[in-house]
């Protein structure tokens, strides 16, 4: 059988990935440039018995998917900058209550309404720190439709494995561009199912007690275990507590389950890095221009390569160190004021060798832009 091939937008590729991963509930509110995700799901979800609901705003959408996750469903919402800002309070709730869910942010130019229809990658730090209080978060991204699909599936897998919200941080170019997507066969990408408790009815079930492997089995609302879910600090049954030991334990658990597994969650791609003395680090659509310039400079003898990050949070420090510590030049290519660049600087051995090749004017960064910046960095002028 030949595989199903589609020629679609990145937003649709995300939809396809979500459906492949087993999505059965979506709540959202339209906003450019993420709207197509909602539009396609409003059509496709009911075809497989799933539910689509357009809520009154982004806050309600985030709340609704949390509710639906608790009944045992795989859930998604999608938005862009302003909506992502609005979701921060309820996103923090999902962190605290350890709710598996996936949030797409198709980034656009900010701050505020900004340039809504233009490309930007300016929400990287917000994804990490947007909600109040100490916490950790997972955020993935991709630069092409095959990867958008794969990372979407990955997002659901990580959400289920770690009982955590996962952010998909796409951008306008990837979201709106059309290209080829080959839908993998069922089973080709492994799926992580909701881990449900084996504890029988009548036996004490602890929704917030990690197993030895760190995972926390869940029980669906409506099932035999009645427990409590709250955004307050809570004990292993889910009931509120302000006992300092419990506070400390829970906060450490929430952060450690993500940060200590950073390597396990690190997804990335390498191109021509074996002998590279100039390492481009990039992600999302910017990585396309980065790869383009790498491939056009290689034939001219330049030892240049690309590290494309797909996991942005937890920041893949090990991977970045590994590939950049010995580089003469590390150049972060991104469409913001250096949000990932700053992280790379704090990670590598020689921060002074890290440079930023960026654009912030709403225009997609071109290979030529990068080439010019490389010349300047290397002291060769324009």
């Amino acid at each position: 059988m030949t595989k199903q091939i589609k020629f679609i937008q990145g937003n649709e590729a995300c939809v396809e990935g979500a459906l492949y991963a087993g999505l059965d509930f979506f709540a959202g509110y339209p906003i450019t440039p993420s709207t197509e995700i909602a539009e396609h799901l409003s059509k496709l979800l009911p075809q497989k018995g799933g539910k689509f609901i357009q809520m009154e705003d982004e806050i309600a959408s985030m709340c609704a998917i949390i509710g639906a996750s608790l009944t045992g469903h795989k859930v998604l919402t999608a938005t862009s900058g302003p909506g992502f800002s609005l979701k921060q309070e309820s996103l923090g709730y999902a962190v605290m209550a350890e709710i598996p869910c996936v949030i797409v942010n198709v980034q656009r130019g900010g701050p505020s309404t900004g340039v809504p229809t233009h490309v930007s990658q300016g929400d990287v730090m917000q994804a990490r720190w947007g909600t109040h209080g100490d916490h950790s978060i997972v955020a993935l991204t991709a630069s092409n439709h095959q990867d958008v699909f794969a990372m979407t599936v990955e997002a659901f897998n990580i959400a289920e494995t770690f009982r955590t919200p996962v952010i998909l941080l796409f951008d306008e170019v990837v979201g709106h561009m059309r290209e080829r997507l080959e839908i993998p066969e069922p089973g080709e990408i492994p799926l992580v199912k909701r881990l449900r408790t084996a504890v029988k009815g009548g036996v004490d079930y602890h929704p917030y007690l990690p197993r030895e492997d760190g995972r926390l089995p869940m029980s669906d609302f409506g099932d035999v275990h009645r427990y409590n879910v709250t955004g307050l600090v809570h004990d292993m049954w889910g009931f509120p507590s302000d006992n300092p030991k419990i506070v400390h334990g829970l906060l450490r658990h929430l952060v450690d389950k993500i940060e200590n597994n950073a390597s396990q969650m690190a997804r990335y791609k390498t191109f021509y890095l074996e002998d590279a003395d100039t390492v481009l680090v990039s992600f999302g659509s910017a990585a396309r221009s980065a790869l383009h310039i790498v491939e056009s400079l290689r034939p001219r003898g330049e030892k240049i390569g690309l590290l494309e990050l797909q996991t942005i949070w937890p920041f893949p420090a090990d991977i970045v160190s590994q590939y950049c510590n010995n580089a003469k030049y590390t150049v972060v290519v991104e469409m913001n004021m250096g949000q990932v660049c700053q992280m790379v600087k704090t990670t590598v051995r020689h921060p002074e060798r890290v440079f930023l090749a960026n654009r912030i004017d709403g225009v997609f960064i071109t290979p030529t832009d990068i080439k010019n910046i490389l010349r300047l960095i290397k002291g060769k002028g324009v």
Partner: protein
Amino acid sequence: MERCRMVFSGSGGQGVITAAIILAEAAVLYENLTAVQTQAYGAAARGGATRSDVILADSPINFPKVIQPNVLVCLTQESYNKFFDIIRPGGLLITDTRFVKTQLKVDAVQKELPMYETVMEKVGKPIVFNICMLGAVVGLTELVTPESIMKVLEQRIPSGFIEMNRQALDLGLELGKKVK
């Protein structure tokens, strides 16, 4: 095959974006080529000159935007004025005789085709103007086969409208081949 970068431009209702998508989709689904299509969104897309970029190739396409197109199509004066000078030296510039007066010299092969007139005369429906344009492009460039375009159209539009589209496509093909 040589990588071909194209820009289709015109005004909102002319269907240039749809045409771009159909071409790229035909290339990907039925010709085993690689294609990327992008377009302008927002205010730029609403009033004024609509634009869609398509790149066709037989290898991976990384940078998805077109800076200097090998093929530039302009279906309104406004889009012509705005975009004519981005054409790649030696490229192909296609305009519609009804909507565009080409006053400006560029280093490109200029083809002024009476696509709109032909469609209105022979089909009578302005809605297939874009398909006729596509026919002309294919006729001139032979990037994909007309059959592939038709396959895409058959997937996309109600069967009652297929014939009309085929007709427009053929008209375009002819116009294109004639001036080749």
